[in-house]
């Protein structure tokens, strides 16, 4: 006969219903025996007080045993029924979930689902790490870009300064100034040339 360990009941009560019934049974039995002992003791006490009594203590003891075995039989039979009622109606957890197991109802999770969920979490963690590394890389490049742009702007500023130098000295545009310089120097050159020719001519004359 397979024993129902009633573990779910034990989870709720903190003891097994069978153990509880055993405890009650033993206690009740002890009382029955004790009370029977007391009955026998009182009767023997009474008989002591009767002179030339024919009834011997052994007889009384036999009577007690007879009554007790009868009572014990009834007791066992009745207690069996009581135990059944206790285990079926009182010390049993019917088709419900205990509060600490509420999750089972809301989230019944099979092994596969749980593995899948854990795998999903691991993948997301990896993905998140990757994104964080990407962020570091992007930030690093942004930093680099800032430096490069600053350098390039610095170079451009130099060019602009050069430009300005020309302007500060009255020439709007460097190229034109250079062209006009070339033309002026050519004119100067020609004038020098002419002057030299004239002075030679004068010397000769």
């Amino acid at each position, binding site marked *: 006969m397979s024993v129902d360990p009633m573990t779910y009941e034990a989870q709720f009560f903190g003891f097994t219903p069978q153990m509880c019934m055993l405890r009650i049974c033993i206690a009740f039995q002890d009382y029955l025996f004790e009370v029977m002992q007391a009955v026998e003791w009182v009767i023997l006490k*009474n008989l002591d007080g009767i002179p030339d009594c024919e*009834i011997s203590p052994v007889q009384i003891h036999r009577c007690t045993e007879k009554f007790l075995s009868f009572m014990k039989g009834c007791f066992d039979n009745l207690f069996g029924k009581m135990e059944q009622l206790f285990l079926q109606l009182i010390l049993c957890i019917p*088709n*419900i979930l205990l509060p600490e197991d509420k999750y089972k109802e809301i989230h019944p999770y099979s092994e596969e689902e749980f593995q899948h969920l854990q795998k999903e979490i691991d993948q*997301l963690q990896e993905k998140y790490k990757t994104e964080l590394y990407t962020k570091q890389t992007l930030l690093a*490049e942004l930093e680099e870009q800032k430096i490069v742009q600053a350098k*390039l702007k610095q170079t451009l500023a130099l060019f602009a300064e050069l430009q300005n130098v020309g302007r500060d000295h009255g020439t709007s545009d460097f190229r034109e100034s250079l062209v006009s310089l070339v033309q002026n120097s050519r004119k100067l050159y020609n004038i020098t040339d002419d002057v030299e020719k004239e002075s030679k001519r004068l010397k000769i004359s």
Partner: protein
Amino acid sequence: GATVSRVKLLDTIVDTFLQKLVAAGSYQRFTDCYKHFYRLQPEMTQRIYDKFITQLQTSIREEVSEIKEEGNLEAVLNALDKIVEEGKAQKEPAWRPSGIPEMDLHSTIAPYFLQQRDTLQRCVQKQEAENRQLADAILAGRKQVEELQLQIQARQEAWQALHREQRELLAVLREP
């Protein structure tokens, strides 16, 4: 119909047990067993029997009270009544431990893992969006660097052209 509380049921069952035990151990039965003594002292027998019954019932009732006291049984049974009442709607067989703790634990832990997964998903999405912005900023920055380089190249070429012209000029100027 009306659900009887477990405590009341317990008391009723114990009372019934006692009634039947007393009915079984009737005075008739008692005197049959102690017939010599009964013939000798019928009143005393009656008194002893009454005392026997009273004492037995008292002892058993006290024991039940003690057990109720010890295991705080009334409160526990009332709590169970309440849980059963709340779970009455349960139609399909209620979950029970499978005997494989890891499996049983999954349902308890799952809500927290689901929460963790959702949080991670949000973090990943947020970080992806942030990285997209950073990537856009980088592309714009690269474009700007390119433009700056082009500008510098243009300036450099202009200066180089100028330099060439300068050299030509000098060459011209230097002509004998």
